């Protein structure tokens, strides 16, 4: 036991460091962390004992399903309860949280050689596009552990049988034509997320590809909603049509897990879904389609290609009672070695470190079997093409997102025309943006 501890200690302490971090400094203390049940956090749970051996710090990790975790994080941060030292932050929320002063700026900790082992942290190795998602007014508020984007997964065998060239899926027009052609004989043409909380994650690909947008100008902080533009209406109507008429039963309430199951079961021809879910979609035990899938980037439209993009990170709560031990834990948890270990041992592929993406053992494990396209290439190309402002990253987005999703759903249900539904969503978005002070 003592030997393993010593070996672990040595592997984490480069001899060259002028200041060595004293890993035993906070022995006996506890750190509380909250996260959603996302691959990395779930896998992290099994590694906590090693950290305790190394430092004597106990880490209590609470895992909740996404929306429950989201609510708990917000209420705990807002009330300043100090219940959690480390909180999971989805990139869309890093700015609103930081703006409220709920998160601790990390740079002072990074600059403190007594608390930070620069080699272990390897900050420059973290993908800059992801770390930038965790910044507000230049200051860093979180460390990313997860890179999220979506790709197209298609059944190469079904496409071939129908005489459809996979290259056709590269444009929005070709994609929707293929969906319609493949929807026959008990096979659904496509599965995507229809649930109002999640549909915009997919729908934005079409909306931006066709030239629409949620607001006037995100980059220049002009948040005047633009949901009634002809492009936005066309995209909404296209998306609703695909979900309502060419998708499996119940698709209007599909969340990501339902889309994964739809593909696993073998009666869906094309899905657009998170690249990080590639492992689950190809699960050797649960999937009937392993080896039959092709992988491609999401389709492009007249206005270019817009793969979804967000990151998940971990941050320190501003009122955290055990900030310093928590910071030690974050460095260790995000270190290159542990990231690679987790990626190799678990279902976590969406790693946030460039060096791991290039690691041969990583590539060997994650080069998923396929019948067209290259999974890792589609994943990486999408991340490289992604825009941090895929959707507005502002505090009112949750409410706008939901009413937008509900408007899409009412088109799918046939309750409203796309024009009416988008007019409603626009009115709600204007109300929210005005109330929260984003527009006059």
């Amino acid at each position, binding site marked *: 036991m003592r030997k393993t501890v010593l070996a672990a200690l040595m592997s984490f302490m480069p001899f060259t460091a002028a200041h060595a971090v004293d890993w035993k400094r906070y022995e006996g203390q506890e750190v509380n962390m909250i996260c959603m049940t996302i691959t990395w956090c779930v896998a992290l749970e099994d590694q906590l004992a090693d950290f305790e051996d190394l430092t004597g710090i106990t880490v209590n990790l609470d895992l909740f399903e996404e*929306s429950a975790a*989201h*609510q708990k994080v*917000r*209420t705990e941060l*807002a009330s300043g309860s100090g219940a959690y030292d480390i909180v999971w932050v989805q990139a869309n929320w890093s700015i*609103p949280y930081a703006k*409220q002063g709920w998160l601790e700026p990390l740079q002072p900790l990074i600059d403190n050689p007594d608390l930070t082992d620069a080699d272990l942290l390897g900050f420059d190795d973290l993908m800059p596009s992801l770390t930038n998602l965790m910044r507000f007014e230049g200051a860093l508020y979180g460390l990313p552990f997860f890179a999220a984007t979506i790709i197209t997964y298609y059944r190469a065998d079904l496409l071939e049988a129908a005489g459809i060239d996979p290259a056709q899926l590269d444009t929005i027009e070709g994609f929707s034509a293929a969906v319609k052609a493949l929807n026959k004989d008990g096979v659904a043409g496509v599965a995507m997320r229809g*649930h*109002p909380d999640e549909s915009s994650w997919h729908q934005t690909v079409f909306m931006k590809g066709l030239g629409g947008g949620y607001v006037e100008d995100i980059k220049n902080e002009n948040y005047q909603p633009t949901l009634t533009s002809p492009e936005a209406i066309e995209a909404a109507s296209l998306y609703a049509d695909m979900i309502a008429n060419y998708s499996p*039963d*119940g698709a*209007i*309430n599909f969340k990501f897990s339902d889309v994964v199951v739809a593909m696993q079961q073998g009666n869906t021809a094309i899905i657009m879904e998170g690249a990080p879910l590639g492992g689950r979609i190809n699960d050797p035990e649960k999937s009937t389609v392993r080896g039959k899938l092709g992988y491609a980037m999401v389709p492009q439209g007249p206005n270019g290609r817009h793969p979804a993009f967000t990151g998940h990170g971990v941050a320190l709560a501003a009122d955290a009672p055990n900030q310093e031990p928590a910071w030690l834990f974050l460095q260790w948890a995000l270190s290159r070695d542990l990231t690679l270990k987790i990626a190799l041992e678990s279902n976590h592929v969406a790693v946030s470190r460039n060096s791991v993406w290039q690691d041969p053992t990583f590539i060997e494990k994650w080069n998923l079997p396929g019948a067209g396209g290259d999974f890792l290439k589609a994943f990486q190309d999408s991340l490289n093409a992604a825009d941090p402002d895929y959707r507005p990253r502002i*505090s*009112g987005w*949750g*409410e706008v997102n*939901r009413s937008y999703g*509900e408007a899409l*759903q*009412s088109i799918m*249900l046939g*309750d409203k025309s796309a024009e009416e539904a988008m007019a*409603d969503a626009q009115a709600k978005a204007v109300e929210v943006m005005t*109330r*929260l*002070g984003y527009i006059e």
Partner: protein
Amino acid sequence: MLSDKSTFRLLSAPALLLLAALTVIPILLLFGLSLTSWSLLVPGSFKFSFVNYAERMFSDENFVHSLGVTFYYIIVNTLIQMTLGFLIAFLLFRYTKLRFLRAIMIIPMLVPPAVVGLMWKMMLIPNLGGLDYYLGLFGIPAIDWLGNPGTALAAVTIASVWEWTPFVIVVMLAGLDSLPRSPLEAAVMDGASTLKTVFYVIIPMLRPIIIVTLLLRIIESLAILPVVFMMTGGGPARATEAINLYAYHVGLEYLDIGYAASILVAFIFILLIFCTPIILSSLKSDSK
């Protein structure tokens, strides 16, 4: 030596204080919050404002819609539970051999509401859930129960009727058993039909019990939140979102605390509208 009146006051004071601390004060605080525009997302918004009541509530389509759903739950769910519960209780009262069923019927009540919601959700999944299989045996095609506003509302009603009708049965049956036998025998002697006996003898005698059950069911019909939460989360297209679930979304998801408080004040107000006449009528019958 204290007078009787002072003794009464002194002895009841602790109970009253406790009651105030647990109910009156939180409600007053809630009302206070509802008069602010406090949003956790807008710094400095903790200010007195009448805007929630004056403007937001009535221009908010979602609020108005959730009011409708609330009335639906109160009226439809309660009526079905009461009618069905009374009918089954009456059958068990008449045919005592069926009494063993009573023990089985209590089971749904013992299942935690969140589990009830999850269970029904799983049974109603199109193609995979159990219900579609049995409907399929009769040639009825798979229905996406929770995917359409109309069927989703019906599904929630079915789950709530399944869970709470047994409660009505148990209470009603106990009431029926405690009725004096002589009026019933007299009715039979006078040649009254079963229907007439029920309407003119049994129901009037059961009135206090019916009123209490009705009151409990109305209050509880809004405590359906966990079932709805698990089954539909309020969707699709808000079809099953009652006012309390709406307040939850506004308060805990959008962190719009002031507005959520005003929605809950409206919620309490609606409960009072429904319950006050019933309480008054029960007081009246007590004083007779």
